[in-house]
């Protein structure tokens, strides 16, 4: 709760200084920003950003967008989905609060990710009103995600801490490379889900902050400048690079998350809609948790 308050204040601060009278970019700072360009002891972020954005970013995004689903398509064809009966006993795993928080984040992502693509491939879409609208939606739908990201981080934190089960899970890649239904060591969340938790939370917060910096552009935060030791323009360049690189990672794991819940484990998505997880699914894919629940007499 304390963390969320601090974040809220930080964002509010960012917004209120956004329209500071003395520009950090075009005023007297302008010459500093220019002198920082390409000179010794400068971060050389201008040429770096230019090179990355000119040659690599769009191609990497395209590679992730095609490569990850292609790999899963092959997985689906060769190994196929895991199917559980879904008629047996079910366990109530996600409360209404969990589900609402998750769904707000889900809807945000479903808008933020496609609009992000429209911006990255803006030339393909011809720019103008359509891409501008995508850019605005990209920003607007960050607001609901910002609201739920801290509650989401807190409600699943305990289950998302890595433990010894995860090492074993990673060694067999969660059993997704075999057709066998053998119990796999995992608590409420397996190592893959935990990885997604940390990328979605820490990566998500990184995306919010770097995105907010690019949105507000000409803000003044003495503390941030001192901390980073960067001029405003270099800070923005760093944010742009970070936003893209983090974007690759979030995107790759988001596609994975959707594939797992919608295709790889048939019907798994219902657990976050109704809150109920099917018993055999639990027994096989989250055996440690299943054992614990059984000991507690839940089954």
């Amino acid at each position, binding site marked *: 709760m304390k963390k969320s308050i601090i974040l809220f204040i930080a964002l509010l601060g960012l917004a209120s200084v*956004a*329209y500071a009278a003395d520009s950090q*970019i*075009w005023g*007297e700072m*302008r*010459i500093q*920003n*220019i*002198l920082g*360009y*390409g000179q010794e002891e400068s971060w050389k972020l*201008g*040429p770096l*950003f*230019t090179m990355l*954005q*000119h040659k690599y970013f*769009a191609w990497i995004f395209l590679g992730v967008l095609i490569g990850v689903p292609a790999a899963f398509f092959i997985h689906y064809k060769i190994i196929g989905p895991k199917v559980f009966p879904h008629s047996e006993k079910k366990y109530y795993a996600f409360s209404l609060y969990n589900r609402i928080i998750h769904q707000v984040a889900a809807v945000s992502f479903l808008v933020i990710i496609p609009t992000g693509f429209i*911006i*990255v*491939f*803006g*030339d393909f*879409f*011809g*720019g*103008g009103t359509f*891409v*501008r609208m995508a*850019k*605005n939606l990209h*920003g*607007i739908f960050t607001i609901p995600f910002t609201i739920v990201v801290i509650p989401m981080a807190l409600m699943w934190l305990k289950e998302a801490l890595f433990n010894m089960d995860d090492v074993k899970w990673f060694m067999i890649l969660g059993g997704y490379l075999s057709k066998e239904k053998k119990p796999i060591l995992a608590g409420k969340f397996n190592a893959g889900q935990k990885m997604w938790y940390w990328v979605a939370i820490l990566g998500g917060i990184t995306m919010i902050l770097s995105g907010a910096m*690019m*949105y507000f*552009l000409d803000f003044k935060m003495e503390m941030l400048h001192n901390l980073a030791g960067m001029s405003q*323009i270099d800070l*923005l*360049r760093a944010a*742009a690079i970070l936003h893209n690189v983090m974007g690759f990672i979030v995107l790759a794991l988001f596609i994975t998350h959707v594939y797992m819940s919608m295709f790889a484990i048939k019907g798994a998505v219902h657990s976050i809609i109704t809150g109920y997880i099917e018993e055999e699914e639990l027994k096989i894919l989250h055996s440690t948790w299943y054992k614990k629940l059984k000991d507690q007499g839940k089954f």
Partner: protein
Amino acid sequence: MDYARMKFYCDESRCIECDGCSVACAEAHELPVGISRRKVVTINEGIPGKEMSTSIACMHCTDAPCEQVCPVDCFYIREDGIVLHDKEKCIGCGYCLYACPFGAPQFPRDGAFGAKGAMDKCTMCAGGPLETNSEKERHLYGQNRIAEGKVPVCAAMCSTKALLVGDAESVSNVYRARVMARGGKGSNSPYGWDKAYKNQ
């Protein structure tokens, strides 16, 4: 037809920080408050021998970085080297500003949420992609003085003739003559030219 390569040059030893160029620019193109296509900056203020003023705007770079990073490809480079952009394509993402070595791209704030509007920058008084001298071109990009055979307004108004604009050869000749007249002192290439024109 062989086009000349158009370049800007501001002579720091002549610039007196009168701000005439930026005022002329803002008036001629009827720029809104908060948009300064051209800006006069003084560095090392108060340090004898080191203080200098210079006028900065878009330098219309060779291999313009802004053109390279634009996600909607709204930039185009004329055969005479002038870098222009299509405001109706621009989405106001700000990438060109991050790439620019001179801090030239400007962003007006519009709408209820204060989103960045289409980018605005110096056009070297050459308008935009719309019909030359049309009302819409004038509204979006300002005057198209180049099409009328006039010198860009900033350089035309410069009282000490510190700010020059023209084809590369003529500007270089003036520069050389001035350096010679000063006894050969000063840098061997105009300030900023290494970044903008790669000393070509």
